[in-house]
């Protein structure tokens, strides 16, 4: 048994996006798009505050959190000043544009066009009193956790 077996390539991923800050949403979107670029099948499941990324009225206004994140290297009290989050958000968006990372709405459209499926979490939708009309048109359906697992059959699940 000395021969090492070649690891199986990943063929399918299910990405859960559970946070609604800009820096909470992008990693999942970048991973989803990157997976499709590799020909990997993708399902994206938005839950809790992650729903903000697909709520039509909110998705263009996601912000970077400047409080409670030591890696921002801004003292908490400074981060809490009015306008800090907007300032940090503006800076981050500029940096991302340089790297060709699209704004959230365009990114969601792009990823959906690659053939990825997008779902909203039913429990959260009920909790926040939302319905299908609140979401952008790329959302394929509102599904339960059980259905999420069914759709994830054979996939690696990535929680962000």
């Amino acid at each position, binding site marked *: 048994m000395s021969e090492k077996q070649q690891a199986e390539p990943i063929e399918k991923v299910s990405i859960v996006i559970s946070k609604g800050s800009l820096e909470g949403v992008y990693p999942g979107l970048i991973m989803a798009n990157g997976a*499709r*670029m590799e*020909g990997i099948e993708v399902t994206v499941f938005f839950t809790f505050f992650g729903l903000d990324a697909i709520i039509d009225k909110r998705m263009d206004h996601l912000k970077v959190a400047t409080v409670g994140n030591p890696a921002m290297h801004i003292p908490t009290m400074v981060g809490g000043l009015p306008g800090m989050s907007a300032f940090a958000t503006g800076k981050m968006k500029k940096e991302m544009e340089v*790297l*060709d*990372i*699209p704004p959230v709405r365009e990114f969601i459209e*792009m990823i959906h*066009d*690659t053939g990825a499926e997008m779902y909203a979490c039913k429990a959260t939708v009920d909790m926040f009193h939302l319905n299908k009309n609140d979401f952008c048109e790329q959302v394929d359906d509102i599904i339960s956790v059980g259905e999420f697992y069914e759709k994830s059959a054979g996939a690696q699940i990535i929680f962000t």
Partner: protein
Amino acid sequence: MSNVEILGKQLELDADGYLANYKDWNEDIAKELAREEGISELTERHWLVINFMRKEYEEKGDGPSIRRLTKQSGVPIKELYQLFPKGPAKKAARIAGIPKPKGCI
């Protein structure tokens, strides 16, 4: 690094299996590479993408991001994935004879 024989010509491949020298490339080689990727016929739309990839590489030293590719070539993302089902940016780059694009987007 490895070598592959395509149309009677020995061609060097890089570690990712892409052509090591993009100047080794010609349209017949592209057709062979496409066949390896399961694309039996290269249409005019395929060529549009392939030629854009080569131009981009010549000008910038790297293949385009998928966003640039769709915006600049005018080929919508949905169609890109139909043309190159197993991942357009990378498969098109391989067929175009340029290295695997380094970008994440």
